[in-house]
């Protein structure tokens, strides 16, 4: 725009007009800006979380054709168990047989004692093939990483680890004992980005060392184990599916007969590891739900801004008229309002960024994310924020700018009300969608809360109150002493699989192999949980376990899945359970059938389970379970700790309430409750301000009508009802959008749980009532003020 006065004077003029208008409408402007700031903060936070997941392993050269070998284990009719390690021998077979694979190398995770100058530190390390640095070509700072690992005493560290252990980066040649064997630092690589890679250890010890897990000599005949992280890079243009197909028969050749058809090795792009549904169940869905909720909040904030700014623009009609009279074109007027919208969104973006900076640590803690707002190290982030703010400003400002620039200047200058064409419809539509989102979020919140409550109470099917576990393989003296404490009702022992992932086997029943969990637990354990058998008896089993597992307890699902008929009929029947011999089975007799119960999440169906009369897992792992009386708990816990030391236990006591374990199990649901709770609150706040904005606009538009009605004898309450009925209309429409969408989404969500609450119908009208309540509260005051006006004030306009 060329003009009679200079660019800076013009800019100053428009900036002044903008700032003074903001100041004059400070309350509603502050609400609009705060809403935008919250919406933008939510979107920014999600973008920061998504950045880590979507850019996973992006720093690895050729990451798009680099893969991690994963294992799939699954019998018929059960979802496969997925593990991110494979058999030790897979890498050698791939190297020897698959020409499409450019490089392959393995890592083995381990904990090692590092001794230097008499000081011992325990560190998480990788035993690594030299070829791993062919696959993952990580930049070296000193030395040659592959050559370093070619030597049995070779050690490669990231620069942070080198500094931690040797005090400097360039410590090439320094020696440290790894599990008692001297090893030499021969190369240093750059630090690995935290959170953005599965490589979470910074020490790579040569896999050729005698201490390496690769040197154990592999599986015994008839057995097959997994544990190596096998990375491979395909040649340019090679198809991973074709490589997997050629790999399948080679891997089958390693399997014992009983595992064929159950085990498969697959390739997963290293960029997709963070969001793989098998390795990280729910991660993709959480990101999806998070994105959706953030988009919803952003939409509500923008809709709010559009409605409020259009409503507030009434006070600028004269200004628009004067500018048009002074020669401003429609484009110039629209440009002014667009620029103001962009400025407002940029202010909101600044506030949103500050909000992210302030709340990120607590939100990271709450949602267990590790997002960072590192705009100083990543200035592109700031540029994106500004670009996003400008784009959003243009989008948010487009409608008000279009409406305002199309008003007739002649009418504006006459000081009479003008009609903004379509304004009412657009405002209604925006409010309807806002409230639809709010109603949807409230329904989601209620369903997630109900499901969490159900999972932690009814779905447990047994009594976890005052139940304590101590990590130990059932030390007899400790258990006996604890049982004598006055605050203890009883004790028992079980394998760790009871709380964590239980070990499982494939029970050969007819032609089928049925995936069955196997949990060691003494019969007294069932008594502690308040579980009584539905058939058979626990008392036939020795209370402290038996040598051979010839008699077992099964759950009801096992009776059903293994085809044993009714619970009573199952007693005395024999079923195959794994024996001590590799790949072998013995036949064990069922002595009792117990109701289904599980310490696993309600997301997974309870599996057929056998309970072995054994006090622990056998490999030095186990749980002592202690049922407390519920009185004098702190004293009892202190006494238990004292007995732990008194009975000669070496390591510090690790004890935990089962209820805490259950809480942890449903942390995701708790997070879901928080997400929906937090954002429902924000949505409610923003929608309330949106409706308040609409109330102002409606009052302005209907001033004359209200005046006439009152002059003709309408009472204040009648006018109030008229106004509130008009304002509630879009909120009622909102249900038409919200109910089917919420029903469909929550139905699908609940279907992800094997055990779930029903989708209660009353939630829908209840959410609608809350939304209506919010409308009446937020618009009520404004409507009341207008309804009370004396008719003469309203009619003075004419």
């Amino acid at each position, binding site marked *: 725009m060329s*003009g*009679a006065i200079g660019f800076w004077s013009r800019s100053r*003029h428009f900036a002044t007009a903008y700032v003074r*208008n903001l100041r004059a409408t400070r309350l509603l402007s502050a609400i609009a800006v705060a809403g935008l700031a919250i919406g933008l903060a939510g979107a920014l936070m999600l973008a920061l979380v998504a950045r880590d997941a979507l850019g996973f392993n992006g720093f690895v050269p050729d990451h798009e054709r680099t893969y991690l070998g994963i294992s799939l284990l699954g019998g018929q009719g059960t979802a496969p168990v997925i593990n991110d390690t494979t058999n030790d021998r897979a890498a050698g077979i791939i190297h020897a047989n698959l020409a499409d694979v450019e490089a392959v190398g393995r890592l083995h995770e381990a904990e090692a004692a590092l001794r230097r100058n008499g000081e011992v530190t325990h560190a998480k390390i990788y035993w690594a093939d030299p070829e791993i640095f062919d696959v993952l070509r990580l930049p070296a700072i000193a030395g040659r990483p592959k050559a370093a690992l070619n030597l049995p005493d070779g050690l490669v560290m990231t620069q942070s680890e080198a500094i931690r252990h040797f005090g400097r980066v360039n410590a090439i040649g320094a020696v440290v004992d790894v599990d008692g064997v001297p090893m030499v630092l021969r190369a240093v690589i750059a630090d690995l980005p935290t959170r953005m890679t599965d490589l979470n250890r910074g020490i790579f010890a040569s896999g050729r060392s005698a201490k390496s897990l690769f040197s154990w000599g592999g599986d015994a005949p008839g057995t097959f184990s997994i544990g190596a992280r096998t990375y491979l890079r395909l040649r340019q243009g090679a198809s991973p599916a074709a490589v997997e197909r050629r790999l399948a028969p080679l891997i089958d050749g390693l399997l014992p007969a009983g595992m064929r058809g159950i085990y498969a090795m697959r390739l997963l792009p290293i960029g997709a590891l963070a969001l793989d549904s098998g390795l990280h169940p729910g991660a993709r869905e959480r990101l999806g739900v998070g994105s959706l909720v953030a988009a919803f909040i952003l939409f509500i904030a923008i809709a709010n801004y559009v409605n409020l700014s259009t409503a507030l623009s009434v006070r600028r009609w004269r200004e628009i008229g004067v*500018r048009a009279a*002074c*020669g*401003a*074109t429609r484009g110039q007027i629209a440009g002014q309002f667009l620029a103001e919208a962009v400025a407002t969104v940029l202010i909101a973006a600044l506030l949103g960024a500050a909000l992210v900076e302030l709340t990120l640590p607590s939100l990271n803690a709450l949602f267990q994310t590790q997002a960072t707002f590192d705009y100083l190290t990543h200035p592109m982030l700031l540029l994106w924020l500004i670009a996003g703010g400008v784009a959003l400003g243009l989008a948010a400002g487009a409608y008000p700018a279009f409406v305002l620039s199309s008003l007739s200047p002649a009418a504006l200058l006459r000081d009479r009300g003008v009609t903004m064409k379509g304004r009412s419809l657009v405002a209604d539509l925006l409010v309807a969608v806002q409230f639809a989102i709010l109603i949807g979020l409230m329904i989601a919140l209620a369903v997630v809360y109900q499901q969490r409550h159900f999972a932690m109470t009814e779905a447990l099917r047994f009594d976890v109150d005052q139940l304590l576990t101590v990590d130990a393989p059932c030390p007899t003296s400790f258990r006996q002493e604890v049982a004598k404490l006055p605050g203890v009702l009883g004790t028992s022992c079980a394998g760790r699989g009871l709380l964590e992932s239980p070990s499982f086997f494939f029970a050969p029943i007819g032609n089928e192999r049925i995936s069955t969990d196997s949990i060691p637990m003494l019969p007294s354990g069932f008594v502690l949980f308040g579980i009584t058998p539905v058939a058979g008896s626990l008392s036939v089993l020795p209370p402290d376990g038996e040598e051979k597992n010839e008699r077992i307890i099964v759950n009801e699902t096992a009776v059903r899945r293994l085809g044993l008929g009714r619970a009573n009929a199952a007693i005395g029947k024999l079923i195959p359970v794994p024996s001590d011999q590799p790949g072998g089975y013995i036949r064990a007799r069922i002595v009792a059938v117990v109701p289904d119960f599980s310490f696993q999440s309600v997301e997974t169906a309870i599996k057929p389970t056998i309970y072995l009369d054994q006090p622990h897992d056998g490999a030095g792992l186990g749980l002592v379970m202690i049922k407390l009386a519920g009185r004098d708990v702190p004293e009892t816990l202190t006494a238990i700790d004292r007995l732990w030391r008194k009975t000669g236990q070496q390591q510090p006591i690790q004890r935990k309430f089962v209820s805490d374990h259950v809480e942890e199990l449903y942390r995701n649901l708790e997070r879901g409750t928080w997400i929906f709770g937090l954002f429902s609150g924000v949505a409610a706040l923003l929608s309330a301000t949106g409706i308040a904005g609409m109330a102002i606009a409606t009052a302005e538009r209907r001033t004359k009508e209200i005046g006439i009605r009152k002059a003709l004898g309408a009472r204040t309450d009648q006018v109030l009802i008229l106004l509130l009925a008009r304002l509630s209309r879009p909120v009622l429409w909102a249900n038409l959008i919200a109910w089917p969408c919420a029903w469909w989404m929550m139905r699908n969500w609940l279907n992800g749980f094997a055990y779930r609450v029903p989708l209660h119908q009353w939630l829908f009208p209840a959410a609608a009532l809350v939304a209506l309540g919010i409308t009446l509260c937020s618009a009520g005051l404004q409507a009341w003020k207008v309804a009370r006006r004396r008719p003469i004030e309203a009619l003075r306009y004419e």
Partner: protein
Amino acid sequence: MLILTEITKTYTTSEVETRALDAVSLEVAQGEFLAVMGPSGCGKSTLLNVLGLLDRPSEGTYKLAGTEVTGLPSAKLARLRGEHIAFVFQNFNLIDDLTVAENVEVSLLYRHGPAVTKDRVGLVLDQVGMAHRAGHRPQQLSGGQQQRVAIARALAGNPGLILADEPTGNLDSANGEQVIELLQQAAQAGTTVIMVTHSHRDAAAAQRIVEMLDGRIVGETRL
């Protein structure tokens, strides 16, 4: 300065057609001070809107400073408005959020042509006797003062045509006289002034009075 030929303006709402201007022809010379009189609803304001390029006639032609404007696109009309026309309103139409000086500055923002110095604002405010109030907001001024600021805004861009819609309608007689004087001075300086008024006293200050009734020009008096 301007020639209107057979200008008609009709408003159609659903089935009712209202003829606000009915074959109005009018010629106004450069520097002339013309008063338009008539009862409420006779089409005075519509005529002013058409003259000010804020509204388009339904029929007829309108030549402003030698340019036929009836068929021009709205952006071009806005440009012509910025170059040639200024308004003075009964209700002053000053922007509440801006100071007196900033209100005057508005008329320079959209004006094309040679740059003017910032002194121009001070100059016109001085001309209307409001320089000492340059930093005040409109609400801090009396009605008469506000209208003088509005005249300063009209004068700032050196327009060829000032359209004044009942400029003394909201003022007492003393302030009204001052405003009429300012308009007379503008006309003497070569600006064409067309003023709609109900006041015979104000109209007497003009060089010519045009009488309107039912959208038509029904009489003309040269003073």
